[in-house]
């Protein structure tokens, strides 16, 4: 089916990672013995051979232009034989063998505006998504909110002590590309208005698919102005936007009503408590660009309650397990509302089915 005659390479897959491993890693691959955190953002891994690999981790906005990437490449050339990597939370890691290079590298990074930190019990980068920069589905911006929250929590990235790891994530709509559903603190963009049905729906969407997409069966086929379309039982809409995912003629975004919600207590590691979902802490905060003060305040408040109360290694969810949800609401001052009570399909399993209660 190829239309051009020139040879065309496909299915070559990614470059083999070995090409990008520094020699010290090749030599100690699978033979690391232990690691130590030397200072904020700096750790050393010691091989069984005795070899030492130093890692310096720098903050990243994730959304970067080629000029910045070239600058990181330059720093890698200058200090680490040209080797670097990115982390699963989008930070940049420089891989050094010469301990003496650590401080100059840090100085250069800081000069570039990229703080060093995030290792150990710290608040690391916020996993996040596209927002208004690139996605059609966004109920809020992603990078903007992240910037504001990390500005505010910056000290906890660069070394201010906290009890354990704290992972924040943001997703700009319920699709949750940032997979925020298992984070210590999750920030989630939400719509709060049913989709607005556009004329000509039948031209761009299959009505049966649209009807089938709705988890709450709020969408019914209907004839509008003589054309096939749908009608929406607004009472039954919980704003998931799945209909919009399958049909562009059902836009959800609404400047007046879109906003954010805050979730707490999830984790993914198996350390101590099993992995678990985050739970709703604050049902709604307004979109207030450019600095989203309601969001930064809310996150800081929760972080501080955790820092004040958590024991060593205790993640947010483990901390709340210990003190109980009523106490969490009390300590944070968050008002408990109807919205906190689950009413989706497993709702009954979230009700308190025992008399084990802390009475005031």
């Amino acid at each position, binding site marked *: 089916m190829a239309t051009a005659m020139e040879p*065309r*390479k*496909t299915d*070559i*897959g*990614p*470059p083999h990672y070995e*090409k*990008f491993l520094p020699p010290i890693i090749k030599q100690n691959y699978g033979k*690391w013995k*232990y690691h*130590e955190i030397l200072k904020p953002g700096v750790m050393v891994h010691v091989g069984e051979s005795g070899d030492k690999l130093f*890692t310096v981790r720098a903050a990243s*906005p*994730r*959304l*970067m*232009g*080629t*000029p*910045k*990437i070239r600058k*990181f*490449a330059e720093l890698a050339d200058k200090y680490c034989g*040209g*080797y670097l990597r990115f*982390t*699963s939370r*989008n930070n940049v890691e420089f891989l050094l063998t010469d301990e003496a290079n650590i401080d100059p590298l840090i100085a250069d990074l800081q000069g*570039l*505006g990229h*703080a060093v930190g995030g290792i150990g019990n710290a608040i690391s980068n916020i996993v996040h998504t596209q927002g*208004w*920069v*690139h996605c*059609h589905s966004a109920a809020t911006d992603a990078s*903007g909110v992240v*910037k*504001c929250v990390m*500005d505010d929590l*910056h000290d906890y990235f660069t070394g201010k002590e906290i009890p354990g790891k704290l992972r924040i994530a943001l997703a700009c709509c*319920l699709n949750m*590309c940032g*997979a925020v559903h*298992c984070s210590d603190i999750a920030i989630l963009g939400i719509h709060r208005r049913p989709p607005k049905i556009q004329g000509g729906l039948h031209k761009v969407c299959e009505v049966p698919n649209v009807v089938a997409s709705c988890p709450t069966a709020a969408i019914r086929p209907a004839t509008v102005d003589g054309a096939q379309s749908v009608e929406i039982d607004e009472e039954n809409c919980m704003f*998931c936007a*799945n209909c919009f995912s*399958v049909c562009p003629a059902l836009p959800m975004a*609404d*400047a007046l009503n879109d906003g954010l919600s805050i979730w707490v207590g999830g984790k993914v*590691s*198996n*350390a*101590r408590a099993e*992995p*678990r*979902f985050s739970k709703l802490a604050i049902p709604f905060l307004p979109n207030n660009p450019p600095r989203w003060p309601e969001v930064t305040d809310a996150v800081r408040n929760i972080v501080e309650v955790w820092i004040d109360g958590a024991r*060593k*290694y205790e993640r947010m969810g483990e901390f709340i397990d210990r003190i109980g949800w009523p106490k969490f609401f009390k300590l944070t001052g968050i008002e408990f509302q109807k919205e906190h009570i689950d009413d*989706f399909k497993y709702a009954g399993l979230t009700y308190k089915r025992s008399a084990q209660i802390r009475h005031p």
Partner: protein
Amino acid sequence: MADSGGNGGTPMLDELEKGPWPSFVTEIKEIAKDKDVGKALLALLERSYHEKIGHWKHGGIVGVLGYGGGVIGRYSDLPDEFPDIAHFHTLRVNMPSGWFYTSDALRTICDIWDRHGSGLTNMHGSTGDIILLGTTTDELEPTFKELTDSGFDLGGSGSDLRTPSCCVGPARCEWACYDTLNLTNDLTQHFQDELHRPAFPYKYKIKAAGCPNDCVASVARADMSIIGTWRDEIQIDQAEVKAAAADGLNIERDVCSRCPTKCIEWDGSTLEIDDVNCVKCMHCINAMPKALRPGKDRGATILLGAKAPIVEGAMLSSVLVPFMKLEEPYDDLKDLIERIWDFWGEHGKNRERVGELIQRVGLGNFLEAIEVEPVPEMIAHPRENPYVFYEEYYEEDDEGEGE
């Protein structure tokens, strides 16, 4: 009201250049110095900030020849006002396992992207790809050509295998229980067709973590989560345990009492672990990295089914194989993956993730179909309801048979 971002600068976005965290606005402005597309994006975003609403439309089907995935089509809903970003597609470029690069490799990517696109990227996307953020339909094929010529290929999107990713693993971590980078690269290469040509009911993500710390969040974010673990005893260096205690670690309070099964004891001079009851949670090892190490009989737990909430509610992956040795050429795992895909391909509904399929048909039936024996490690607890679909029963005339 403040300026709406047309030609009057970007007063709202400018606010986001303040503060200590590196600024994505600064990044875009840097691009805007040379490229109109950067200027246009800034203006459009400033407008979104004023209006509190995005200005992108559903993407159409755009891509490169012969591939169904790897490109996300994107169009502005204000093409007349912002013609430079009327098309603004992204390419998902498959990153190398573990996100390791040389400076040269990065510069190669930058060169290609400066020539063919906005110059903006995400390093990296949530699934792990290098995201090349914003170009026109015309530029897709040329970009692809230069990428493959330089040894890069596209990642997944749509209803296909998504770009597998992994933690740093044995490259830099002492706890890796199998070779996460090798496995990830091997699977990615092995399943190139499934990655590039969407033919599944929906997306299928694979993430490989070297140990139960799960530094790629696989249990929450991958349809197939491969989590390293071990079967034998935790390796203890008693001298280092003492050193940790001397260093100020309260072993009793901060380690033993936090063990989920309370199978670890410290009497002030010796640390004892009842490994039979250890659930390999990693906590004690995390707390004393010099003193403790995972056992030597290593492999991985294979879990299945994680996904985000849409439609049936979010899921974490659940145990499919409690322990599997993972050694090249990984045939057991590949076979298993193919059996899963076969069943899912045949029985999965459109846009039904594998975790939803399992819940719909029942884990027991699913196991039968993919020929895996049920074991109690797969469940948190046996059923609580008495609604059992007993499959065999006696007919009047065959007492003695059945069951």
